[in-house]
């Protein structure tokens, strides 16, 4: 009896300890659980740290860059990578490493800023369209018209008509990516707005704004966050493409796409001029892609394990 009750106590204590341990390991908040699932994805985790490192580099560029971004030197033209110039120099004798470091500022800024704008506009449009059925047809058809044009073509047309330059390039990328966010938001909101808690909110007389912003949007955020992470990579590539074609940032700004374009003339004799900005673009967009994948898996518990 004693023995058995003791074992029972021990068993219970062990179970309690185990539960506590599990509680500690497995957070109960939504964000905590998501983070926990996210961390399990090693590739996404590395992608995140790469991105953080790039942001730090971008902020510190003027401090860590060995040369200025437009320090031309007629005596050091087209050098291949060496001790003085780790990434070599370009056709004006400018240090490519320094330009890559400064260029990360432009790429990241363009990437994040355009996504913030196009996401905000797209989400609001999508949510309104889904919530107010009368608006739906008109708004979504407009979005469809914009979305029907291939994104890059639209961006090119906008950039060409507005003229080149950083601001116009960003406007071009923003407009051309709005439809993606509007569509995703709309389809998510359409499912959510039929749910009981929305009806409950309605029945106690909550205003539309309150329902949309307090009840609906927080519940449709995960696909939007995933889309926007991928969207940053997309925006960086789109702006690089525009700059490559001469529709984006103008010299001497060290935009990576523009650096690629400038280097392509020398591709056969001095491939480092293209390889280095090319790899920089590849890495950042890969990092953002795996990060986006990681978020998607983490947000969706059904995909877990």
């Amino acid at each position, binding site marked *: 009896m004693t023995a058995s009750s003791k074992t029972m106590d021990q068993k219970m204590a062990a179970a309690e300890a185990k539960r506590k341990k599990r509680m500690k390991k497995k957070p109960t908040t939504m964000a905590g659980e998501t983070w926990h699932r996210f961390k399990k994805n090693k590739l996404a985790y590395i992608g995140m740290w790469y991105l953080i490192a790039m942001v730090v580099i971008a902020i510190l560029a003027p401090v860590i860059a060995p040369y200025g971004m437009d320090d031309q030197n*007629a005596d050091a033209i087209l050098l291949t990578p060496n001790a003085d110039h780790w990434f070599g120099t370009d056709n004006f004798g400018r240090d490519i490493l320094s330009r890559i470091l400064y260029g990360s500022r432009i790429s990241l800024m363009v990437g994040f800023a355009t996504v913030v704008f196009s996401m905000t506009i797209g989400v609001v449009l999508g949510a309104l369209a889904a919530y107010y059925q009368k608006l739906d047809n008109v708004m979504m058809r407009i979005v469809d018209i914009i979305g029907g044009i291939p994104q890059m073509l639209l961006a090119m047309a906008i950039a060409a008509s507005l003229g*080149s330059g950083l601001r116009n390039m960003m406007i071009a990328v923003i407009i051309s990516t709005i439809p993606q966010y509007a569509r995703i938001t709309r389809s998510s909101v359409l499912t959510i707005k039929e749910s009981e808690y929305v009806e409950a909110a309605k029945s106690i007389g909550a205003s539309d704004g309150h329902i949309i912003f307090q009840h609906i949007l927080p519940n449709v955020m995960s696909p939007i966050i995933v889309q926007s992470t991928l969207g940053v990579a997309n925006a960086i590539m789109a702006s690089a493409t525009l700059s490559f074609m001469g529709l984006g940032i103008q010299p001497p700004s060290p935009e990576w796409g523009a650096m690629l374009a400038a280097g392509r003339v020398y591709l056969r004799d001095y491939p480092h001029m293209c390889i280095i900005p090319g790899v920089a673009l590849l890495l950042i967009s890969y990092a953002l892609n795996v990060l986006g994948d990681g978020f998607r898996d983490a947000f969706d518990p059904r995909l877990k394990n």
Partner: protein
Amino acid sequence: MKTKRFLAMLLAVVTILGCLAGCASSNGGGGNNTLDPGADIGEIRSSKDTLIVGTPQDPANFDPNDNAIQMVWAFKKNIYETLVTLDNEGNIVPMLAESWEYSDDYMELTFHLRQGVIFHNGEEMTAEDVLFSYQRASEMANASPSFTMVDWDNTRIVDEYTIVIATKQVYMPQLNYLAFPLTAIFSKKAYEESGGDFFKAPIGTGPYKVANYISGDTYELEAHDQYWEEGKPYIQHVIFRVITEATNRTIELETGGVDLIYEAPASDIERLSSNEDVVVYRDTSLNTNFILFRCDHAPFDNQLLRQAVAYAVDIPTAIETAYKGTGVVATGWCSPSISGYADIGVYEQDLDKARELMAEAGYPDGFSCTLYTDTTAERRDLAEILQNQLGEIGIDCKVESMEPVAYQGMYARGEHDFMLYGLTITTAEGDKAFRWWHSENTMGQQFDAWSDPEYDALLDEAAATIDEDARNELYRQAQEMLKEACVVIPTVHREILSAASASLMGFENDLGYESPLLKNCYFA
């Protein structure tokens, strides 16, 4: 899934690097082949009967009077010919006209046409065709500058092979203007039958006629077997391939995809010169590239600021870097090969002087401006270097590079503060070289909006001066004025860069129009 994607990306990178590594090697040694061009042998047999030309420019249409772009003429000159033409020494030589003479008062120019010149449609060319071609040309924007001084009331046909061109006043440059490729002669009958659509009937007298074409891609020409010059052309078929990307033209030539390329990129000249299978043709052209100021709005409506820019930039260094050792740093306001050129010296870098001028103009700390350029690699590079140099004395210069069509629209509207552009003086004489800055410039393009009645008077007087020395003295004074007012800053006399397979003989760059004749070419 994720691993797969990573592998795919890795594979892509490896492939790209592999390709690059493959391209980077294979650079043969050896010097430049020298040739005996234009060999004047009676019996020339081409060992190959098709010549493939890589050209940067789509000719767009077959209209003999349209388009001011040299590379378009380089195509059309095979189909259409002019009464007279310019040789590489800058002399006017016969083409469709055998001889010509001035009337005693120099108001009339009589041409004696070559007899037995047969159009592609088999009909003979007569004075009727010449007059008709000229009248049409005078109504076409790009060709009309050649005819502004023609007095149509007194211009007349004397007989089948004689035509008199009258001018409104004594106008010595007229003969040179008639060597301009856009004044080419076409068949009046064919034009009327085609309803004016030259896409249907490009009927000229040239050594080649159009056989087939895919717009924007390839243009196939076939020898005109009734061509007036005995035995020519030597090569039966010529195919123009439009290859806009400069590096691709080089690669095509190296791999044998084309036999001849126009506008070889400066960055590839070294590589091509060291290739034994390729001959590079380099000649200084009649072209001068300029920094052109727009003088009717701030900041460059102020002469002091224009001069400040001229003193702030180091043109020789900039040219060396941007043009990679090709071209000649400009020594004056036109190419030295042009009659009327005066050696009056150019501005040289002097930063103190530049700062002084800026202070005097009321901008001691600098000002902002926008420099426009088209997308030519060399010009874009030059713009970036100038931007950097101007930055050193506090001039905040933005660079805007535009596609050619947008570029033309921009400067036609006069939106630029200053811009980069080149002018090829196709008549090889002073009137055309300096008339660009005349306030009633009839060239169809206006860059400067600068006007000085004294300058206008000088040019008008020069054009009517028969004595060459007296005329050149007037041109010298005009150049002094241009220098003082600093309307433009000359940068470089560009080099014409062509490259061909070593087996191609008889090829020569064309200095006047940069549009070489292919009728003398043959394969050894």
